[in-house]
Every structure is written in structure tokens, then in C-alpha cells.
């Protein structure tokens, strides 16, 4: 394992320190727990937004803590959900009197830990609601799965629910708009190479030189199937066929698009993918309202990418356009 670390056991702590040194005007850390909160939290009269998950997805989630997005991010061990006590401390730290919304990605561990924290905070009399993001279309809802995974589309939930909360909306309203985003959100990803979790020290799975993994999640866990390498146009078409037919997205729809790198895909290749996605959508007469290309929800150094589409209406457009100022997402 070749990595820029000191000690596999200290990765999260040291990363958090570096993050705080980089963004002292945005973030502060809670004592004794790996939770990063908005410098000014709790913001009085604003619903608090708490998200988080395993580390290794940077800039998610701490990068989205700031005005117009999250109030707190809980940093779990690498690819491991945070613990209930951590999330409980985050909830207490950001409750500005109007309650707290938990934005959870649909992974068993995340759901269980966040729900335990919710129970703990409710015993203190804090109003807590939750939404569970399940944008990944790779895995069908079947008897085998507990619903779909939450992946990069979660960033749109942070952005839009964050904008709604910033307007001073009530907890129920913020939850409602977050659920509207989730209902209209679809993503799918693929990988060219695996990644190495520092504590494990070796790749989470192996792929031959000419193999790709389709339908990958964001934890280096295997995808839905494996196939032979093909070109960018064909890969994009395979992902888009699944994404577009799933909602489904129709002729005349307006969408927000995110082409998200998983950690080791050059921006040049993400732009090539973006060109293919644009041409694909043009062919279907689906109009892209706003495009985001870059690394929003990574998987350590995994090479690969995901595509996310969010179907917009006027309310969602307005909230997507609202200003945001966080370390990893800025919009005037």
C-alpha cells in the first residue's frame, strides 16, 4: 500500500485536522468526536441539517458544511458509518430551536446508526426528522436488497434542503423538499479500478486489465456485474439507459446533471463523459438546466465515475440556484 498517510488508524483524525486548518473560517470541530460543524452553529431560527457517513468520500460530507448546505457532517471511519454518539453530538450542536433533519444514505449501517442517534436526541426533546437517499438505480428493488443505495445524488439533497432551511422554512417543509429531490433523483456509477481502504492495506476487489465493474457503490464494494472494457460513449450509454428509463425522464424534462469522479478519474475524462451525456440527452430532448462536473462524492482513489440526474420543477430550480458557500460547493 502506497499512501500519503502516517498511520492507518489515525487517517480520519489527521484528515479532519488538515481540513480544519484549510477552512478555519467555515468549520469547527466538536470536542472528542469526529464531527465537523458550521463555524457559527447552531444557527438560531434555522432547521439544522446533519449528514455524514464513512470517510473516504471527500469532499463529502464535511466539504458541504456551510451557508446554504449542511450544518454538521459526522465523519465515520473509512467507508464505515459514523456511530450514534457522534451523530447525537452533531444533532445537539446544530439544533437552533427549529429541529434537525438527518440526511442519510441508504446503507444498512448508516440507517441504523442515524436512527439510534435520532432516538437519543428525541429523548432530549429535540425535534428530529430523517430522509433516506436512495438514488442508485444499479440495484433493482428486489427481495434481496433493502432498497437502493444512496450515492452522489445526495449532494443535490444537501444543496436543495440546505437552501430551503436557509430561507427559514420549518422542519416539515425542509423534509418535504428533501423528499421531493429524492423522488426525482437517479444515479449510477462504474469503476475501472478498485481502491485501497488504509486499514485493510490492499484493494477491496480485483479487476483484470480489460474488465470494468458496472453499478458500483461508493465503498469499493463490488457492483452489479462485470464486463469487458468499452469506450466512453458505450459506457455512458449503458449507465444512461438505466438512469433515464428508471424515473423515467421524458421528452421535455429539465434536469440538473452531475458527472462525478470517484477519486482517480482525470477531469479530462469526466468532461468526455459529460459530452457523451449531453449528446445522449439531446437525443432524448431532455434539457439540462445546470451541470456539475467534478469530484463531489469520491471513493478514495477508485477510478470510475457516476452520473446523476435530478428532474427539476420551478421550486427545485430556485433552490438549486440559491447561493451556497461551503468549502467544496460555492455558488454566488
Amino acid at each position, binding site marked *: 500500500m502506497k499512501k500519503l498517510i502516517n498511520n492507518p488508524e489515525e487517517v480520519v483524525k489527521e484528515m479532519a485536522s488538515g481540513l480544519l486548518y484549510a477552512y478555519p473560517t467555515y468549520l469547527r470541530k466538536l470536542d472528542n468526536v469526529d464531527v465537523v460543524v458550521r463555524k457559527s452553529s447552531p444557527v438560531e431560527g434555522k432547521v439544522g441539517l446533519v449528514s455524514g457517513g*464513512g470517510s473516504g468520500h471527500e469532499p463529502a460530507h464535511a466539504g458541504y458544511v456551510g451557508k446554504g448546505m449542511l450544518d454538521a457532517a459526522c465523519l*465515520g*471511519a*473509512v*467507508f*464505515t*458509518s*459514523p*456511530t*450514534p*454518539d*457522534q451523530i447525537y453530538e452533531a444533532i445537539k450542536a446544530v439544533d437552533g430551536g427549529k429541529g434537525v433533519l438527518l440526511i442519510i444514505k441508504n*446503507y*444498512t*449501517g448508516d440507517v*441504523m*446508526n442515524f436512527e*439510534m442517534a435520532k432516538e437519543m436526541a428525541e429523548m432530549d426533546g429535540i425535534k428530529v426528522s430523517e430522509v433516506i437517499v436512495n438514488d442508485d438505480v*444499479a*440495484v433493482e428493488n*428486489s*427481495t*434481496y*436488497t*433493502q432498497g437502493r*443505495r444512496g450515492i452522489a445524488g445526495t449532494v443535490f439533497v444537501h444543496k436543495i434542503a440546505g437552501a430551503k432551511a436557509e430561507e427559514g422554512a420549518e422542519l416539515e417543509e425542509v423534509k418535504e423538499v428533501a423528499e421531493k429531490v429524492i423522488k426525482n433523483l437517479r444515479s449510477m456509477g462504474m469503476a475501472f479500478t478498485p481502491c485501497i*481502504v488504509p*486499514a*485493510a492495506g490492499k484493494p*477491496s*476487489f480485483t479487476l483484470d486489465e480489460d474488465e470494468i465493474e458496472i453499478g458500483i*457503490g461508493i*465503498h*469499493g*464494494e*463490488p457492483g*452489479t*456485474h462485470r464486463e469487458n472494457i468499452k469506450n466512453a460513449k458505450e459506457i455512458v450509454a449503458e449507465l444512461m439507459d438505466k438512469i433515464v428509463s428508471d424515473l423515467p425522464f421524458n421528452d421535455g424534462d429539465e434536469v440538473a446533471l452531475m458527472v462525478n469522479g470517484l477519486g482517480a478519474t482525470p477531469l479530462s475524462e469526466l468532461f468526455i463523459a459529460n459530452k457523451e451525456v449531453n449528446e445522449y440527452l439531446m437525443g432524448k430532448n431532455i434539457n439540462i438546466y445546470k451541470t456539475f462536473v467534478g469530484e463531489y462524492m469520491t471513493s478514495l482513489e477508485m477510478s470510475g465515475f457516476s452520473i446523476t440526474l435530478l428532474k427539476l420543477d420551478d421550486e427545485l430550480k430556485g433552490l438549486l440556484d440559491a447561493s451556497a458557500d461551503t468549502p467544496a460547493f460555492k455558488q454566488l
Partner: protein
Amino acid sequence: MLLTKSDVVNILDDIVKIVEDNRQYLTELDAAIGDADHGINLDRGFKAVRDKMPQFSDKDIGAILKNVGMVLVSTVGGASGPLYGTFFMRMGNVVSGKNTLDENDIIAMFEAGLSGIKERGKAQAGDKTMIDAMEPALNELKRALSEGRGLKEAIEAAANDAYNGVLMTKDIAAKKGRASYLGERSIGHQDPGATSAYLMIKTVADYVDKLQQ
């Protein structure tokens, strides 16, 4: 036969060791169908149990187990943190205030712990989870004890059934947790959660076996 408080502490210490020894093995099992951290996470949690044990080892058995559960919940993370944490907390609840455990206590603890796991994980036998090792073990333990076979033999039989449960997880598709996203592709792989549950039950059996020699 009774288990004393110091037996419980010794067993927990043995569990810390067995998890440490199998950290890599459990992680490799998880890599095949999950996200390759089961051994790493459990090892982190049980090391924390060992570090914090002096703070509560003089309390009663119920309190010790509840504390172990809380340490696991707050250090393991993932799915196994809340699941094993709940397991130990619920076990602690039913033996609150006790300093020795008889056979009925052991059955009651195991039953409470397992039902806690089922509630928390919303899972049942056959979903390819730790329940597939625990449930057959509990059933066998109850059966063997009701036949009057004695604790040593009963726990040994329970551990054997837990192992058979682990082997059975190879033949079925996962319905819970990360592995469920693989659907049929998870067939052929042994469940890491069932494996860690078996290792813990086996540790209890080995301890009781040594105790009676």
C-alpha cells in the same frame, strides 16, 4: 454449573483475542461481498472494550455487558456496531444486578440479545446475516439444556450448529446489508457477520470446556 463474574470478564477477554486473530480473515470474507471492513471494525470495537474494561469490570454482570454494548455501539460503526452493541446491551438488561449466571440466565441472555439484533437489523434467519449462526445456536442450546445435557455439552453443540449456520450462508443470497446489493452474486460466499458470531460462540464453548477440565 454457574458462570461467575470473573468468568464473564475472562470470556470477553478471549473474545477480544479471537476477534484480533481473525481481523484479517473477517475482512477478507467481507471484501468478497461487502465493503471489506468487518474485521477491522470489530477489532477496533473490542480493543476499545479491553481498554475500557477496568472502568466497569467490578460492576455486576448486567452492568458489564451493558457497558460492553455501549462501547461497541460508540466505536465500531457500520452495521455491526449497532447490531453487536444491541446484542450485548440486551444481554446485560436481562441479568441486571447478577454476579453469577445459571443455565436459565444464559438462555434468557442469548434470547434477549438475538431478538435485539433482529429488531435493530429488521432481519431474520435465512437473510445471510449473523442471525444464521446465532439462531440455530440458541435453538440447540435450549434443546440440549432441556435434555439435561449440561452446560459444557450444550454450548459445544450450540457452537457446532452455529458453524453449520455459517456454512449454510454460503449457499444463499444475501437479503440484508451491503451484500444484498449483489443478489445472486453473493451465493458461494460465507457471511462475515455469521462468521464473527460463530467465533464468539465458539469462544464461550472453549472457555466453558476449559473450565470443566
